[in-house]
């Protein structure tokens, strides 16, 4: 009966092991159970045997299942409970194997040198057989292995108990100790200390039962986990669907992509279509393909997070904006094996952003054109000067040639000047055209001092006419900032024009304007300041200044500063104003420094 129970358990867990081969615990348990069943069977035979001839082989061969049981049991404990000292385990394996070998070398077994007779007596209401025999002193080795097993059991139980897993410590550890103690009846019987039959099978069955109970507990827990997992999976899907999230998983080794139905809908894939990376790539909008592939490669290379925003082309030709995020799983060798993530349809958000940017640009353009109108005198001056030099030079050359005795050296000099002045004029026109045309915002990394100098070229003659004493303190070798050169010039020009207006009624000696550039102490931003010696700003108006349609001037719509602030904000910078301690006000704007990996300097006047 005992053996049958053990065999059932063994068969059951063997079947489980067949399905989950990576889980060696089940195999070990099956071995233990089979061995326990075998031991029980051997003992039953021994109890019922009547002759020495029947008894001897049983005593010898029972060591085989005992060996299997001991080994598989110790291995089970170490694997399942992650406890027990390795050296103890290996000592037990070694000793037990030695016992097994010696067992087959000695005439009868490791336990007996000779069995002289079989003695029968009543025990537990039944007649049982025990041997009358001389014990083998080598049997001590077997006893030592029992001692080790007891120590191993106690040590393991203590470890598990300390770890806080008290139930397992009590159940598995307790049954182990119980079994190990119970097994002591064997040497005692052999040495004739007590007079009972061998019943090792029972003690081992107890251990196997405890192990089985533990494992079945695990099975139950796994089942409930599976149920919970399914529930949470459903919940997650619900959440993902309602958030328009498409979840995906890319098996990199096999190049297979699994993706939720929502995800398929986002990318415009058929619900049955088989997906791999190339299929995903083919959906990407050509302009964005490079950046997405770069992000994926970077993530695969570093094992880090993947993040990118890109457009896909749907089968009907429509463009859709996607935000993708994911992370890479690496195997033990650090090779990427899997990437998991989610994709979100952000088309609406992107459209709103683009719309806002378009409005901002239109405002900036409008304000720029208005400002140019106000500066027309200065602009005409900038164009007129080179034209004047060209005309005079050309007419002089004509005269020289008409005189007949042409001095070629002089004519050459004249032509050189004509060429350089012509270039100057076309440069002015090009700058002007940049200012006049409405175009998309550029993102260049540029040098702020260049922006300042360009603005001074544009307004220089106006400053002269208004008798404004201009002074610049430009810090050299500043790091670059990222932005639109024309828009930044526009901001600076606006601030300079305002400063001039503020000083229009000041005494000529007081008309000082100082433009400074420098780096913030945090080393993260560049600051430009424009200080005047005008009438200053009343404190309550200092913030109002930047609101649209607020103006202190007779003419002017009051858009200048609000547009400036919008432009600077779009550049992730700040624009503010303070009154000077002495006289007048100072306007500042700061711009973040270009990140080091984007440091490709393009001329500050946006020549591309």
């Amino acid at each position, binding site marked *: 009966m005992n053996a049958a129970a053990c065999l059932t358990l063994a068969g059951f867990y063997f079947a489980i092991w067949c399905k989950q081969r990576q889980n060696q615990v089940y195999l070990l348990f099956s071995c233990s159970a089979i061995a326990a069943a075998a031991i029980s069977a051997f003992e039953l035979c021994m109890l019922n045997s009547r002759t020495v001839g029947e008894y001897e082989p049983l005593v010898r061969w029972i060591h085989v299942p005992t060996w299997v049981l001991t080994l598989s049991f110790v291995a089970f404990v170490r694997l399942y409970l992650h406890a027990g000292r390795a050296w103890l385990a290996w000592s037990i394996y070694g000793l037990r194997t030695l016992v097994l070998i010696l067992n087959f070398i000695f005439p009868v077994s490791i336990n007996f040198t000779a069995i002289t007779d079989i003695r029968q007596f009543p025990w537990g209401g039944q007649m049982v057989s025990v041997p009358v025999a001389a014990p083998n002193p080598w049997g001590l080795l077997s006893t030592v292995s029992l001692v080790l097993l007891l120590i191993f059991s106690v040590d393991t139980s203590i470890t598990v108990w300390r770890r806080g897993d008290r139930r397992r410590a009590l159940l598995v550890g307790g049954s182990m100790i119980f079994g190990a103690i119970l097994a002591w009846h064997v040497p005692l019987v052999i040495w004739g200390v007590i007079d009972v039959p061998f019943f090792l099978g029972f003690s081992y069955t107890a251990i196997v039962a405890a192990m089985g109970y533990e494992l079945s507990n695990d099975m139950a827990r796994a089942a409930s986990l599976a149920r919970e997992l399914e529930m949470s999976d459903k919940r997650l899907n619900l959440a993902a669907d309602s958030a328009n999230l498409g979840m995906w998983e890319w098996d990199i080794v096999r190049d297979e992509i699994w993706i939720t139905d929502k995800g398929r809908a986002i990318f415009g894939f058929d619900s049955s279509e088989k997906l791999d990376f190339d299929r995903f790539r083919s959906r990407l909008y050509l302009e964005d393909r490079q950046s997405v592939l770069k992000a994926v490669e970077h993530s695969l290379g570093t094992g880090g997070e993947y993040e990118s925003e890109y457009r896909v082309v749907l089968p009907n030709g429509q463009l859709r904006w996607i935000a993708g995020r994911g992370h890479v799983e690496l195997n033990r060798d650090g090779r990427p094996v899997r990437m998991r993530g989610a994709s979100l349809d952000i088309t609406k958000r992107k459209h709103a952003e683009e719309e806002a940017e378009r409005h901002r640009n239109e405002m900036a353009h409008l304000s720029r054109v208005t400002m140019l109108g106000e500066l027309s*005198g200065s602009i*005409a*001056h900038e164009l*007129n*000067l*080179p*034209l*004047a*030099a*060209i*005309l*005079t*030079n050309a*007419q*002089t050359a004509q*005269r*020289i040639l008409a*005189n007949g005795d042409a001095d070629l050296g*002089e004519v050459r000099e*004249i032509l050189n*000047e004509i060429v*350089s*002045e012509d270039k100057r004029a076309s440069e002015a026109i090009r700058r002007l055209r940049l200012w006049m045309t409405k175009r998309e915002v550029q993102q260049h990394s540029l040098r702020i001092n260049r922006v300042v100098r360009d603005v001074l070229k544009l307004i220089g*003659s106006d400053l*002269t*006419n208004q*008798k404004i004493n201009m002074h610049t303190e430009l810090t050299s070798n500043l790091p670059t900032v990222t932005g639109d050169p024309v828009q930044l010039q526009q901001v600076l020009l606006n601030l300079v024009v305002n400063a001039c207006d503020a000083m229009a009624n000041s005494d000529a000696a007081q008309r000082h304007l100082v433009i400074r550039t420098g780096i913030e102490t945090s080393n993260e931003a560049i600051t430009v300041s424009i200080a005047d010696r005008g009438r200053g700003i009343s404190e309550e108006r200092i913030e109002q200044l930047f609101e649209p349609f607020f103006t202190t001037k007779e003419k002017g719509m009051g858009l200048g500063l609000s547009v400036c602030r919008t432009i600077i904000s779009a550049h992730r910078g700040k624009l503010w104003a303070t009154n000077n301690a002495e006289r007048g006000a100072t306007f500042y704007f700061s711009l973040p420094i270009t990140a080091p990996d984007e440091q490709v300097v393009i001329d500050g006047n946006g020549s591309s």
Partner: protein
Amino acid sequence: MRALEPTVFVVDDYAPVRNAISRLLRTAGFVVAAFASADAFLAQYDPAASGCLVLDLAMPAVSGLELQEILAQTGSLLPIIFLTAHGSIPQSVQAMKQGASDFLTKPVNDEDLLAAVRTAIEKNRVLRHEQAELSEIRARLATLTPREREVLDYVVAGKLNKQIASDLGTVEQTIKIHRAHVMQKMRVRSVAELVRLTQRCGIGAR
């Protein structure tokens, strides 16, 4: 030498225009002296110089109009031709009121500039000639004795010798002698000539 040879002084802060104009004027046969600022010009200005001034209106520090004022205060006879890239009407009106010889906008046609320069130099020559004459007359006046000077005033006022003698309480003969001295010292032969000379010095208008 400079006092004899008329010089065109060019003052403009923008080098390419300054050089081009200087070259044009030199090619046309003028003696040219060019300066990058009003201060540089004033630093070597010789009031005796003859010629004219070609002056940029909009310059940093001392502007064209300001230089014009400074020169007027020192009694300069140099006619000024203003050059401007974007001359505003108020500025040109002020310049002309202050006695500018001409007002040209850049880019300027060579003929226009040369004509303006020639006119200005001629104007300067006349002015200088007039001033020379005036100082000559003043020098002659200075040689008269106080009594002769008194007699001169009566003569140009159209008084007869008898009237003058009675007014000054002397005899007609004495007045005749004084009168002869006056005519001789002023190097004139007729009363009409004497009146013309003295009028130029502002005498005889009372």
